[in-house]
């Protein structure tokens, strides 16, 4: 799971930072002169090193945004509409509150494994967020459901099973209960 890798990467960096701080604090047990020359050199090295790392990370990560057209023509289109406190998912457009209500009671949308899906996500009232959880309950993609706008999220659903949609934007007293499901066979 990528999230765990990021977590352990962060923990390593945090431990390194804490170690540096403790070592610097420890160095005060024996006072010494610090010459500005070597300190400035180290700062320059730190600046150049950090800048190079950041530029490298930008070059690697910016092409991997969820907006890039990795999936140029999706196999299926699923319309998603949020409203306090449920999501309606349908392969037909949902534009009225009645259609939304019907959508919340409809049978789950079903697609074959390996299908690329474009979710067209919007809201009829406040901001919600369409958080797509895999059958293993890991967050795999998300986009905001915003009134007046349609956000298009493209995902390839490889793993068969039941996917859960949770609302990830605070939207009122039953925000934590706002959900939907879809199936990948």
């Amino acid at each position, binding site marked *: 799971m990528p*999230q765990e890798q990021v*977590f352990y990467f962060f923990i390593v960096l945090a431990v390194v930072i804490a170690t540096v701080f403790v070592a610097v604090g420890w160095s005060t047990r024996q006072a010494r002169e*610090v010459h500005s020359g070597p300190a400035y050199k180290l700062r320059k090295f730190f600046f150049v090193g*950090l800048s190079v790392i950041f530029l490298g990370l930008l070059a690697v*990560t910016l092409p991997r945004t969820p907006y890039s057209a990795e999936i140029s023509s999706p196999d299926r289109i699923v319309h998603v509409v949020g409203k306090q406190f449920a999501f309606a998912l349908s392969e037909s457009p949902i534009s009225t509150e009645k259609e939304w209500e019907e959508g919340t009671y409809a049978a789950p949308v079903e697609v074959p494994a390996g299908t690329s899906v474009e979710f067209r996500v919007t809201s009829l009232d*406040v901001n919600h967020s369409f958080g797509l959880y895999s059958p293993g309950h890991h967050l795999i993609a998300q986009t905001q459901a915003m009134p007046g706008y349609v*956000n298009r999220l493209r995902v390839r659903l490889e793993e068969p099973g039941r996917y859960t949609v949770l609302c990830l934007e605070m939207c009122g007293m039953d925000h934590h209960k706002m959900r939907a499901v879809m199936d990948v066979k």
Partner: protein
Amino acid sequence: MEISNNPRPNDVQPTALRRMTFIWMFTMLTLFPVLLVLGFFMRALQANFMSKLQPEWFYAVLTLHGLGMVGIWYVGSMAGVSYLLGRYVRPSLAISKVAFGATLLGVVLLLACTLIGRMGVGWYFLYPLPLHSKGVWPPWATGAFLGSLAVFGVGWTLWSLDLLRAIAQRYSFSAAMAWHYLKGRSEPEVPPLVLIVTVSMVSALAGFVAAVVVLVLYVAEWLGTGFTNDALLMKNLTFFFGHVLVNITMYLGVAMVYELLPAYAQRPWKTNKVMALAWNTVLFLVMFAYLHHLYMDFAQPHWLQYLGQIASYMISVPAAVVSIFGALVLVYGSRMRWNMVSLLLCFGVMGWAIGGVAAVIDSTVAVNVRFHNTLWVPAHFHTYYLMGVVLMILGFASYLGEERGQLAERMGLTKLTVSLIVVGGYGFLLMFYYGGAHSVPRRYASYPQEVAQGAAYARLALVFISALLLGVLLYLWDTGRRCWRSFSVSS
């Protein structure tokens, strides 16, 4: 005690300024443990304790906790830098009192709309949620909420303007921004405190303008004129204002570190060309870093999303290279006088560094798609807030208590206090980080079965929050009695 850039033979500020600063600190430090207990309460709900309580209480308390914490540390940092600025310039006491009155009124309105009105919209009151209560909060609560923000805004804008006015009486704008250092000149000497406060107040005013626009647009719709706002525009304005306010609080905390730490390390820490360049760069980049809050709004123009990541990465370079590295060089091998003040300041810088790393990770669009609005977000901002700027401001409050040195510090108690705060604080944060890495959403009153493990993390967090709370109470008792003695002497 010798201070860098020593402008006056006597570092102790005039009595009236000291008294006003004590009043600010007393108010802030009284509200702090209360808001901390509210944080404990929310984690207890998420741990499935008190499961019979209606969920709207969670969201109301979340709103009070979030806005309350952001507010008290903002005014705490403002009060701190106002006091320290008194070494160089003369901020107005009257304006500080106006800001205090506005803050108290705003707090009363906020308490009313959340604890009586049960208004649960989060610190960021994302449009149009305040106007869609679903019958939970009455219309008067929305009015009181918008009123409290307006009152805070007026008081704090005046305060920001006054600090700029005070600085302008001694330094021209270009001097206060240290532009002459960029040209290789170091006269007139500008203390880092003045430079950072100038940068912060200019940013603050930009943020407050955005806040005013948001409030006006809200009121226009709330009055039922038929006018409807644009959700994406409102989101941009809200996050611009919110992000700038939180960043400024951090920078003001760092300004206090620049001003206070040299005296403990017994080394100078002066403005130079690199520092001037760094803080001017910050002023530019802070205008765009907020864009990372909108990565998951795919309707936002994509070039703004890329700009958000670039600005978020680049803003950390001057911070890390100049301020954090500078603090480490200042302390390294120095004749450091370790006590409550210096320990809290140094741990504060460390928290800023660690929280900054987590923030940079989350500001990567490709990562954010799996972390946005999970517990990773409160994890990173609590790191640079609770373990960063809060410790810096607590360090400043301790400094007030020892400024006249009436009561000797008990180092055993200091070590115990700081240990409890650091261990409790980082343990509490670890549960947030771990929850975020396991896709547990933030701002949930209780967890559904898919992320039920969130309740277990919340239970563990309660243990650490208890240790943190104990540490904070010890700090308040010890610092409180020392401040009281110092205050009595100065009155």
